[in-house]
């Protein structure tokens, strides 16, 4: 088992190095992205550009540049400085991370808490009115774009512009340590919007997976043993049906930690996604590069976790 984990971690590390190298190619070597020219801004003249080139070490041979870049990245987590504000990208990312973490984790708890039970009930009462209603609603939510749903929710419930002024609207985010109450209330609407689509998807996934599992021979065995139906469903059915869903869950969370761009933008939450969005509008390449690498890191870590958790949940994959 420990060899298995070690192998996954080493593969992850290798992948991360490859992604870093790829971003180097994208942001330093491709002709559209001469960093010195971009850094110089609108009033660039050759002298300024040359100066910047020397400052950023861009006049050195490409391999040296790559070595410096990789060394800075992996030893010091050095991602350079924003073209726009001049701030360190590393500190920008660290500043923005708590908001994204709050948004993602809260939404994840919400969508699992809603999606899974709905899926279970739908699977057990297949073709009932309840099943049809919840699957219809989930189709609607899957199809609703986040930015549209976000605006609708703000129109309905935001305390500044809403019809029913229930929760604080856009731009009201406060840090958890700074003001816990405000943190909680300000995130209510974003959580709901982000969770809605996922809850719908997870309800469908859970339903399909459980319907398949409830047809397995071992479910019949459990009933033949005289195990109470509730236990048959939860211990035998759901336990087996949930394994593939948890792996998708870990990947989804990994992706969202790289920035829920749309929801963070609609609700003006100062997270990674918002940072990325702003950086794109300003062509602020070091920040884009930083957010890309951070997203890659989260996805790779989530992947490793999935593999390890899966091996723990399903004894059959442990030794293969």
């Amino acid at each position, binding site marked *: 088992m420990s*060899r298995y984990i*070690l*192998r996954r971690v*080493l*593969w992850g590390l*290798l992948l991360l190095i490859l992604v870093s190298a790829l971003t180097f190619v994208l942001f330093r070597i491709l002709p559209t992205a001469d960093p010195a020219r971009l850094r110089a801004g609108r009033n660039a003249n050759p002298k300024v550009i040359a100066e910047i080139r020397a400052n950023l070490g861009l006049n050195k041979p490409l391999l040296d540049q790559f070595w410096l870049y990789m060394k800075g990245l992996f030893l010091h987590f050095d991602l350079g400085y924003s073209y726009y504000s001049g701030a360190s990208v590393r500190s920008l990312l660290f500043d923005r991370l708590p908001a994204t973490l709050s948004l993602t984790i809260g939404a994840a708890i919400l969508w699992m808490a809603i999606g899974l039970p709905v899926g279970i009930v739908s699977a057990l009462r*297949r073709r009932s009115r309840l099943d049809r209603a919840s699957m219809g609603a989930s189709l609607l939510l899957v199809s609703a774009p986040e930015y549209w749903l976000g605006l609708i929710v703000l129109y309905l419930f935001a305390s500044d512009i809403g019809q029913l002024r229930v929760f604080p609207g856009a731009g009201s985010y406060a840090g958890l340590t700074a003001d816990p109450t405000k943190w909680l209330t300000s995130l209510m609407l974003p959580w709901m919007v982000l969770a809605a689509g996922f809850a719908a998807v997870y309800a469908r996934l859970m339903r399909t997976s459980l319907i398949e599992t409830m047809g*397995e*021979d*071992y479910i*019949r*065995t*459990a*009933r*033949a*043993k*005289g*195990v*109470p*139906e509730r236990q048959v469903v939860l*211990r*035998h059915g759901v*336990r*087996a049906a949930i*394994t593939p869903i948890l792996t998708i869950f870990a990947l989804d969370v990994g992706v969202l930690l790289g920035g829920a761009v749309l929801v963070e933008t609609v609700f003006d939450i100062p997270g990674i996604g918002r940072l990325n969005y702003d950086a794109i509008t300003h062509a602020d390449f070091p920040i884009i590069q930083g957010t890309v690498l951070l997203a890659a890191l989260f996805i790779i870590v989530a992947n490793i976790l999935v593999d390890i958790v899966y091996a723990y*949940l*399903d*004894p*059959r994959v442990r030794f293969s």
Partner: protein
Amino acid sequence: MSRGPGSGDWEPEPRAGAGRDAAFSVSAGGARARVRGDGEPLLRVRDLRVGFSGEEGTAWPVDGVSFGLARGGALGIVGESGSGKSLTALSVLGLTRTAPGAHVSGCIEFEGRDLLAVPEPRLREIRGNEIAMVFQDPLSSLHPLYRIGAQIVEAIRAHRPLPKARARARAIELLELVGIPDPARRVDAYPHELSGGQRQRAMIAMALANEPKLLLADEPTTALDVTVQAQILDLLVRLRRELSMALVFVTHDLGVVAEVADEVLVMQRGRIVERASAAKLFDSPTHPYTRRLLAAMPTIDGPPPPPLPAKDAEPLLRVRGLVKHFPITRGVIVRRRVGAVTAVEGIDFEVMPGETFGIVGESGSGKTTTARLIARLLAPTAGEVSFQGRDVAALRGRELKALRRELQMIFQDPYSSLNPRKTAGSIVAEPLAVHRVEPDRARRRRAAERLLETVGLNPGDRNRYPHEFSGGQRQRIGIARALALEPKLIVADEPVSALDVSIQAQVLELLRSLRERLGLTLILISHDLSVVRHMCDRIAVMHEGRIVELAANEDLYGAPRDPYTRELLAAVPGARQLDRRTIHA
């Protein structure tokens, strides 16, 4: 067989605090104080009907079944697929009545209570406690994510409030009773870590957890190898005696039922067509369907095929020192080879033109790997397969395609080996198009019709899809497809093991007649000694990747030399009864 220390030394647990634990008091040797012979049967089923509503009305797969079973009795229910035998058993356990669209009527009286009238919670108390069930495939019937000990403990605690540690101790006892070696360690194994036979033993241990008065066994040995099957049958017979438990044994295999049941019901299309004692059924079957079933049953003492006219021709296929290893790799980033699973370990044989050559063995013996190596679906690790003097492994491109034309395969499962979206006609005609034998579409169609007719299908059915055919008909389509290119050699890998006995007999008869009519050379791979007996001129017995014995049909069955061959032959179920039948006949 390894029976383990089960029988004699399985003692009741010390009665700590008596109470509910007293329910487990069992004395070895079957002297349990259960009232017997009081005239009241344990189980009485009257006019049982089970139906399912669908879009095309209600079908009644069980249509008015009545039978009784005394305490401690053993009843066999025999029938082919679709006869309603499994549904009958499941209904006794009340597992059909909650299925969507199901209608169950009639009366199932167990110890005087009508199980169809009993409410679900009360029925749950009976399931796994007074009536238990063992299913066909132990791998899919055991939960893959829980240790077998935990699954047995669950069965115990569903009916008795024992503390976990005591239930676990009881689980270990049960595993010992069913003959699982080292039960204290195996109790913590997952199902996939056990062999097929051990899994079925664990399944039986779980069914016996609460000492049921009635054990329903639904094809419990069908998924197992013949020697393992013999062990499980012995185990069931022994346990029934020791625990004085009644047994309902559902099977498609008349040989198996002869070994375990006192009395046998023969079912056909949801009805019982004959009821007789096991001995009488084999000696003097009355119903025509029973007679047909018995006649269709391939036996190891039936007549061998007529001998081939002696020809001193060159062998069509020559296999020399054939070896196949599947590598096991290990390594953190760079995977390196650390070992290999040996599937085939140096085998030699020759197949003459016009001959039917049998390869027989249990699962894991390497027989299917051999078939795949011959057909060049796998590359050998070492050794040579030469077909008409050419080394099959060296063929590439055009030459390989030519080989495919002359060497065809028939596969085991006619359900999954035919493309469901193609019609029977296009499946059969496809090889003709692929190999550009018949570029003209209309002529291809006529060829397909002829082929369908050759294998005994209606040529007019060429526009039907595989799912519209029965299993036996589908296998005929597979055979027609293999015949399309008029190959020199056909490799048939378990061609009849997915089929019912009467269908099996028809398909074998078809292969036998095609062989005579078309002069086919056939390699027939089977786990079933009686199928091979019926079909083959010479037979190779494979065991753990090697050929342990290769002999002419008569010699192999008449005077087997290798101990493993003898073991295989002895394990064939029902050998005794069938011997007697041939004497009577």
